[in-house]
């Protein structure tokens, strides 16, 4: 056994936010689930888009086509939120599940800083991976569309939907981190988020009249999702940027709630 230096008892300066962010990055990249989830995101997001474009290019180019090719160019990205949400949730709930959250808060007693670091990191990673995946899907899918002479240019709404996909997934990552801190269980948090994103939209269709229309407008999959879509299917939804602002406000509410609860509850 080697000897330890005698204790200094001196209190060193508080590490900056950069150190905490860096520590979260080390955590994120050193578990396999991160890479599996990101791989699933890329495969589904880009692969499915390419596949759907390949299967539909001929029909889209034919006279009986009643949909614009642009709506197919981000097809796979409709499922990408599932992977983003799982990644965001896991960075928090895996820590609660294993008890590691106690190591985290012992190392960084400011829970707000841990929360912020996780949220910032998830937003950054998902923005980059989300945008790259959307572009990859565009490149793959557009090759088939172009072969039929109906290629779409990377400009205007199509271009916006590329980094819009990144922005939407980044926002979902932050939302998932917040829900993870609120719920603390992987299955619970993932179920809540997938229900909100994929099940509620179909259920809301059963709510009649203006009430139903408004609820539909305000669902996060619509407020946040519009920016990631090159073509608006539903004229009743908010404009992409307006919708995204509302989405950010919705995320902020959940983040605030999670922040308050995190401060109050025992680790």
């Amino acid at each position: 056994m080697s000897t330890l230096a005698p204790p200094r008892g001196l209190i060193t300066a508080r590490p900056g936010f950069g150190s905490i962010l860096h520590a979260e990055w080390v955590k994120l990249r050193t578990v396999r689930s991160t890479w599996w989830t990101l791989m699933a995101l890329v495969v589904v997001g880009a692969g499915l888009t390419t596949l759907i474009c390949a299967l539909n290019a001929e029909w889209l180019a034919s006279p009986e086509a009643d949909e614009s090719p642009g709506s197919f160019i981000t097809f796979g990205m409709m499922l990408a939120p599932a992977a983003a949400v799982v990644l965001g949730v896991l960075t928090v709930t895996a820590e609660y599940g294993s008890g590691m959250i106690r190591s985290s808060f012992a190392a960084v007693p400011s829970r707000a800083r841990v929360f912020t670091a996780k949220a910032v990191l998830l937003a950054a990673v998902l923005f980059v991976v989300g945008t790259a995946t959307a572009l990859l899907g565009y490149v793959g899918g557009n090759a088939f569309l172009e072969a039929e002479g109906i290629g779409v240019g990377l400009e205007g709404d199509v271009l916006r939907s590329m980094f819009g996909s990144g922005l939407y997934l980044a926002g979902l990552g932050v939302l998932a981190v917040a829900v993870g801190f609120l719920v603390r269980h992987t299955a619970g948090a993932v179920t809540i988020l997938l229900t909100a994103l994929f099940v509620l939209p179909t259920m809301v269709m059963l709510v009649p009249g203006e009430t139903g229309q408004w609820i539909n407008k305000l669902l996060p999959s619509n407020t946040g999702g519009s920016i990631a879509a090159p073509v608006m299917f539903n004229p009743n939804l908010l404009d992409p940027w307006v919708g995204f602002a509302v989405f950010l406000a919705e995320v902020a509410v959940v983040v605030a709630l999670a922040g308050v609860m995190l401060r109050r509850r025992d680790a």
Partner: protein
Amino acid sequence: MIQARHLTKRYGATTAVDAVDFTVEPGRVTGFLGPNGAGKSTTMRMILGLDAPTSGSVTVNGHAYADTGAPLREIGALLDADAVHPGRTARDHLRWLAVSNRIPQRRVDEVIGLVGLEKVAGRRVGAYSLGMGQRLGIAAALLGDPGTVVLDEPVNGLDPEGIRWVRELARQLAAEGRTVFVSSHLMSEMALMADHLIVIGRGTILADTSMTDFMAHHAASHVRLRSPQSREVAALLSGRGFAVTELDDEVRVIGADAAAVGELVCSHGLLLHELTLVRSSLEDAFMTLTAEAVEYHSTEGVAA
């Protein structure tokens, strides 16, 4: 130095820690002894700011844990639960901890060597044995070379060699002037490791004393006598100022010399069937002390 003042923690109707006051001084190993559910882990979580006290306070070096700059450099802790993600390697676990407190990365390999995990540091923690997990926890506690070390049941799951290693490590850390606070349910273990003892039962402090004093006061011996004339024997001995207790079929003389008792009884022509010096072990002393405070009694015997 760790100071608890009227420290209280309630979980709903359960009072896990009940207005305890204690000080853990530097330069010695302080044992924190108590049966299951006594409140040891809860107290340690409050020291680390993980659980908020219902009332009262606990400070490390005079301030709340959260007011520490780089906490791992001031206080290192091994908690009862693993507190490690099973999918991450030991080295990576120590690595992020080091980064978070700006501890140089070479320290990671230093502590891995210190706890003897060199060969397995690159393996996922989920595949670790209980003892390897404990060693990793101790490595994490020592990562920041802290002046205060808190270990919650560090010998749990260790083999005899490992137990001895922890004991020597704790003693060495204290000898270097650090504050060392170690919990256990085993009095025998504490007797070998600790200089000072804080005994907790059902959330209250039952003893706060030096190990030597504890042994002198609690590891008492008594002389057991059996006699067909036990009433007369008891009367004789208490008449001579001995501390006598009469039980069903025996007479107990506390803190007496067996030879003196035997000679006295014999010289009065009373019959003796048995004369035994009974030394109660430290474990017995601990049991007696915490008897009332034990949370979970095992049911005697096996159901018929």
